[in-house]
């Protein structure tokens, strides 16, 4: 088996359909569809009150499931791709193996929740950006991109879905999301701890990793998907992110990037509405 497995070769059964991030975000059944519906209400937060809540929640849950599959695959590759001791510490690999088990459980949970919500596997497209972030040749960049940026996003998503379950009177959903949230905080914390530890005496490598994290954060803030504004479907979960080792400065930076993405999206939509015939 090769070291460093390319994202294009990810193995899937016949039900899965892969697409780019932009294509997935353009799916009108999606959570992130802030543009089409934004004029109809004052908030885009994913709540049961949204007219498209059923499809949006299903789409988000399916996105969680495929994201968990890729997180599982990414953590597994980090166990294999790097020589123990020389390229990655033994204890880091143990953490990645632990993450494999956690992500496998998350896939199991989200498959069952998807069934519960009436969704079939493959009903929505999958984008593989998460695994792409796990393909870096530097384990520190993987930790920054996956454990801190993407698992950080997972904290925001699970917090939103937990609230959705509570508001919808669905204790089954809220219960499962809360368990997954606990695991994600652990994963982000792993990323924060290892990033600081490995780059303790290598500021250049740390800067590179943080820059990569910022790029991934920006990609996943696409269209204002996640921010502190009510216009975003997913709320930035500051409290849980603090528990996972994010500093105030880092949180403010993510909030700024997310808000900028939301504003970008808003301007683009306003331009579209202004030029389109009534």
């Amino acid at each position, binding site marked *: 088996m090769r070291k460093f*497995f390319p994202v294009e070769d990810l*193995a*899937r*059964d016949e039900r899965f359909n892969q697409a780019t991030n932009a294509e997935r975000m353009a799916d009108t059944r999606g959570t992130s569809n802030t543009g089409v519906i934004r004029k109809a209400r004052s908030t885009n937060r994913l709540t049961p009150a949204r007219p498209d809540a059923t499809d949006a929640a299903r789409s988000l849950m399916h996105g969680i499931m495929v994201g968990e599959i890729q997180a599982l695959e990414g953590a597994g590759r980090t166990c294999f791709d790097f020589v123990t001791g020389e390229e990655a510490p033994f204890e880091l690999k143990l953490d990645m*193996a632990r993450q*494999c088990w956690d992500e*496998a459980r998350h896939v199991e949970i989200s498959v069952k929740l998807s069934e519960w919500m009436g969704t079939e596997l493959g009903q929505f497209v999958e984008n593989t950006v998460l695994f792409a972030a796990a393909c870096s040749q530097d384990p520190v960049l993987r930790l920054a991109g996956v454990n801190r940026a993407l698992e950080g996003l997972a904290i925001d998503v699970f917090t939103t879905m937990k609230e959705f379950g509570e508001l919808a009177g669905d204790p089954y959903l809220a219960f499962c999301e809360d368990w997954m949230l606990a695991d994600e905080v652990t994963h982000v914390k792993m990323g924060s701890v290892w990033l600081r530890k490995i780059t303790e005496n290598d500021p250049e490598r740390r800067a590179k990793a943080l820059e990569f994290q910022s790029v991934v954060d920006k990609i996943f803030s696409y269209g204002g998907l996640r921010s502190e504004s009510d216009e975003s479907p997913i709320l930035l979960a500051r409290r849980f992110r603090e528990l996972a080792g994010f500093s105030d400065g880092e949180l403010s930076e993510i909030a700024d990037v997310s808000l900028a993405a939301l504003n970008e999206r808003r301007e683009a939509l306003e331009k579209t509405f202004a030029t389109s015939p009534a």
Partner: protein
Amino acid sequence: MADPFKARNPFAPWDRRELPGMFDVEETARRVGHYKWAEMKLFEVLGGWIATVPEIDVKLRLGTHCYKHAWHAELWHNRLPELREMNPERLTCPPNDAMVRFVAALTEPEAPEMTIEKLVGVYRVFIPHFISAYTFHLNNTSQITDGPTSRSIKFILQDEFDDWRDGEMLIQSLLTTPAEVKRASEHQARLEILLIEAGGIAGPGTIGSADVE
């Protein structure tokens, strides 16, 4: 109420543990180092294969089992300094070159059509060899002086049996034609030959000798 000051035997009548054991501290450390190396190689390849298998049930089992073997490696890593090996890396090694060749052959399959080979290597060859190596160790070490190793082996063996059953059931669910059965058995034989050459996970003598001396 019984008199609390009445003399009692340190070993209760049902406690049949004995002092003698086949392995001294040095030999135990040697074996434990090989176990750690083998468990590491196993959790690494299980992790690597997750992205390569299209079958979702297999993918999830590999992820779960990956952690269990990492935990076993961690148990052995922690045991080494207790066996007077202050540099655990020194003994974290294969017993010989044949074992390295075995792991290379085990790790070789990558294509998405090769799930049978991947599972056969782990669940019909490697894990059965772990079970026999650990069982031999458990049954031959001193249950008193080497209590910590025995305790770890008991935990590990529980995992190995559970995982072996999971893996074997997955293999049986994938073998649907005579050609697939042949593929599985040929791959198993190829790997088994290499492991015999290695003498087992801890090298020659991994499970002792059944010959009359």
